[in-house]
């Protein structure tokens, strides 16, 4: 690590005329997975100390989490993170604060790990927030600053959030033909009333173990409201399935849960999402992983997940009325085209047709819009029919 830093510094000096704010460099092969998290955190601090005493500018290499540094692996069929890094240096005016914040969050995580406690990302924000001595400046001005720092730490240390003892709020729920153990409590997911089981942020095998599964597949819907429709109509019972929702963009807990159900219970995942660029992207995240968290794709992405609706062709297919239409605005079209250009969408004829059709339609549709026919249309007719029309699913 230290050796690498020196070389970077040299190259920086030689190219210091332009003083690039971000030094992009190749990341070394990941080889720290066996190391315990607390050692990784210690290592981070040690490298700073070492550099300081060695009269080198302390810096942390943080893999870049952006489209430019991810690639779609056609073999694994999910997004993988590239090996380009950004160097975060203390003695760079633009990065100094971020550097300080990174170390500060790291020290808080170390405390958590040592005490074997977990904290939410918001709690981390408050733990690390204080006024800097002798000034009026706060270490963090908002949670928007601390959240990315946590993610930075995750990638930099190659430690998952769970391993850092940090979790996010529960988002998303589950109900259906599944029995599992959560922190020692056995939960029968068929007996959860109307509220279902809130999927926690951490669903690792040490927390949740699957016991019994009668379901044939998992139906993931976009939002809580749609999910309730299905629950009320006891869709999971009639169709022997598990119903999940992610409250919009699914959190890591939900995605990890979907992955485990697919991976361990061998259940197919089908998605019922809105017919808009958002919906497409939610599907894409479930299937291929997200750009931001590409480093976790391998343990979250479900490449076999499939998109059953709502499709741009459903307007005609189900003879819907004009009432379901929401006009596309400029941003929607822009985003749709962007999605079309993602390497993992490119080359898929069906998707191309689907997105182009939406742009051609000039409108988008929410799952709720299907209620315009009648309240239970989505559970009684639409979804069962779509489940049968396997050929018009989107992959």
């Amino acid at each position, binding site marked *: 690590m230290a050796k690498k830093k020196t070389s970077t510094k040299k190259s920086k000096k030689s190219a210091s005329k332009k003083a690039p704010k971000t030094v992009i460099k190749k990341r070394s092969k990941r080889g720290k997975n066996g190391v315990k998290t607390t050692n990784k955190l210690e290592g981070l601090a040690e490298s*700073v100390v070492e550099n300081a*005493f060695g009269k080198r500018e302390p810096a942390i290499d943080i893999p870049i989490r952006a489209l430019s540094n991810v690639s779609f692996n056609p073999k694994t069929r999910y997004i993988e993170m590239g090996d380009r890094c950004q160097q975060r240096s203390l*003695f760079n005016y633009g990065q100094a604060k971020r550097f300080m914040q990174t170390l500060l969050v790291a*020290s808080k995580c170390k405390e958590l790990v040592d005490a074997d406690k977990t904290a939410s990302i918001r709690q981390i924000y408050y733990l690390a927030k204080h006024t800097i001595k002798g000034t009026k400046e706060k270490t963090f001005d908002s949670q928007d600053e601390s959240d990315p720092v946590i993610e930075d730490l995750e990638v930099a240390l190659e430690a998952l959030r769970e391993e850092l003892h940090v979790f996010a709020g529960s988002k998303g729920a589950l109900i259906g033909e599944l029995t599992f153990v959560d922190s020692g409590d056995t939960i029968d997911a068929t007996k959860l009333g109307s509220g279902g089981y809130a999927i926690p942020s951490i669903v690792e095998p040490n927390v949740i173990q699957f016991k019994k599964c009668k379901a044939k597949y998992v139906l993931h819907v976009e939002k809580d409201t749609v999910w309730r429709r299905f629950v009320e109509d006891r869709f999971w019972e009639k169709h022997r399935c598990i119903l999940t929702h992610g409250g919009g963009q699914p959190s890591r807990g939900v995605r990890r849960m979907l992955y485990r159900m697919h991976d361990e219970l061998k259940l197919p995942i089908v998605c019922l999402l809105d017919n808009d660029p958002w919906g497409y992207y939610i599907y894409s995240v479930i299937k291929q992983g997200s750009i931001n968290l590409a480093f976790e794709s391998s343990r979250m992405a479900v490449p076999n997940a499939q998109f059953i609706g709502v499709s741009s062709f459903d307007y005609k297919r189900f003879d819907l009325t004009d009432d379901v239409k929401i006009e596309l605005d400029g941003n929607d079209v822009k985003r749709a085209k962007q999605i079309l250009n993602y390497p993992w969408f490119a080359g898929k004829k069906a998707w191309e047709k689907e997105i182009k059709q939406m742009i051609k339609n000039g409108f988008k549709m929410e799952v709720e819009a299907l209620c315009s026919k009648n309240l239970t249309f989505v559970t009684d007719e639409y979804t069962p029919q779509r489940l049968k029309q396997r050929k018009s699913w989107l992959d």
Partner: protein
Amino acid sequence: MEDQRANAVGIPSDITGQTNVKLSPQCSISDTVGKLTRIKAGKVSKKKSRTSRASAETMAKQQREISISEFFARNRHLLGFDNKRKALLTSVKEAVDNALDACEEGGVFPEIYLEIKQLSEDRFRMICRDNGPGIVKAQIPNIFGKLLYGSKFHRLKMSRGQQGIGISAAGMYGLITTGKPVSIISRTGKGKPAHHYKLAIDTKKNKPDIIAEKTVEVPWERGTEIEIEMVASYNKGRQSVAEYIELTAIANPHTTIVFKGPDKKVLEYLRNVDELPEQTEEIKPHPHGVELGVLMKMVKETSAKQLGAFLSGEFSRVSPKISKEVCSKAGLTQRTWLQSVGPSDIQKIYNVLQETKLRAPSTNCLAPIGAEAILNGLLKGIKAEFYTASTRPPAVYRGNPFQIEVGMAFGGQLGSLDANSKGDDKSKQPQSARVIRFANRVPLLYQQGACCTFKSVVDTKWNNYGLSQSRSTLPQAPFVVLIHMASVWVPFTSESKEAIADYDEIRKEIKLGLSECGRRLGTYIRRKKKRSHFAQRRDVFHRYIHEIVESCRAMTVCNKDDLRNALSDLAARATEAADMEFDDHGKIIAKRKNGDSEMDNTIVLDESQQAPAGQLELFSNGAPTTPKRTTRAKKTRKSSKKSKKKSSSKTKKRR
């Protein structure tokens, strides 16, 4: 008959003054040319069509000579006595200018004592004393009691006064407004008697009226003291006597001025240059700067008999060779007798002269203040943190040599003084820069907007030099610009000598001077901004170092103090490097910390050229009473001036 009266006063306003103005009703108009001004009273007689109107004979009874004094008594605004406030300032100005001219010509370091006493609400007494060579007894009445009497008008030489109107006009103003005569005491040296005169001006005859005359005992050795009582008003701030004195001190760092105002407050400006301005040489007029009428006059008045001798003898830069060339082109020869040269020939000669290529006039008639002296002057009068000055090489307009000097003072207390006086206003409205203007070392206070110097400052793109400026205004900054024009004949826009006329050649020189100094200022401002940015960065790093040390301590075993020191060292190094990066980028955010003390109270002079070697002795006011005129040979400055032998303290008319 009223129209006649009006006509009598309707004198050409371009009267530039002339000695011995004889006004004769019958003089022909063709004779009144150039600066030789004759004032014609009455109408040119013409055939009358009605007998009821005045006949030429009756009119002739009313046609009579008007004294120049009488004329100015009525038109005192032409001389700068428009209102009470300006009257006081103009009087002070004339008195101080004369005192300075006299001292310099006499080779004495000027020490001027000026006092203004308030006698009643609008009545003041001005007392001005110098240590000049004094005036011989016989000349005192003429100098102070007669308009247009003096030593300066007839020569093309750089001096403050030019025409010989000023001080007698001030005396006349006092006389008119209060009825009190002017009191003058002059002594020419130790052991000589001091003469005290009380003078009034006979405005009809333009001659002194001696009211009292005696010999008195005075405590001072040599010099002249003038005392004028007048109706006036005293004010402070801009365009005040105090400002005039301040600016005079700036432009004349070789002068000690003590000023005691009506409030008994004493302002003292001590001499901080040990060198008198060089005495300038008189020059002959340059043909390109001469007008046809003047040429005619010169032909009439010259002592030369033949044309060739006249041309080469009366003008500068006309060699015998050129003289011959001019003569032949005009169809005449060098031998042509001047008496036989008619007006049409003069016209020809004039045209040829204007077309002939001639060398620029010599410039040893100019005595610029000098960049070093300007710096000293600015240091004396203005509290700022950055000073720079530059002297342009001499240039020529209309055949008159001139030289432009520019000085600048920036920042420091210029900004904070303003904050004190205006309070909160400062943050809302940043102050405008101030332009201080000089012509032959005389401060110009009025008609700034009409002045060539001011226009040049406004036209300069100050944004290039790191100052903010809206379109066509003065830059917004704690900033003072000094512009000095030295010339044998400064082209004023009006007789009250308040603004310099806008000649392209002059404008160009001013602009060059401004940009030369502006570049230095810009460099300084950029450097200063960079430094403050550098400090700001270091500050940020140090702020975070504490947090980082704490965090590291929480994660691993280390010595906090050692780590902190190690990081601080790195921060110091890194901010240097960061600063270098900034040089190349030029991207700057100006933000100064209060604690940035290294700039305060420091006089930053542009290292490159202007920091005078003798800078350290700036404030050592040894102020020797006997002046040492150091020879120029010692100086490295490559100015074209040469030191001139002391001119004998000739009696001169004080303007």
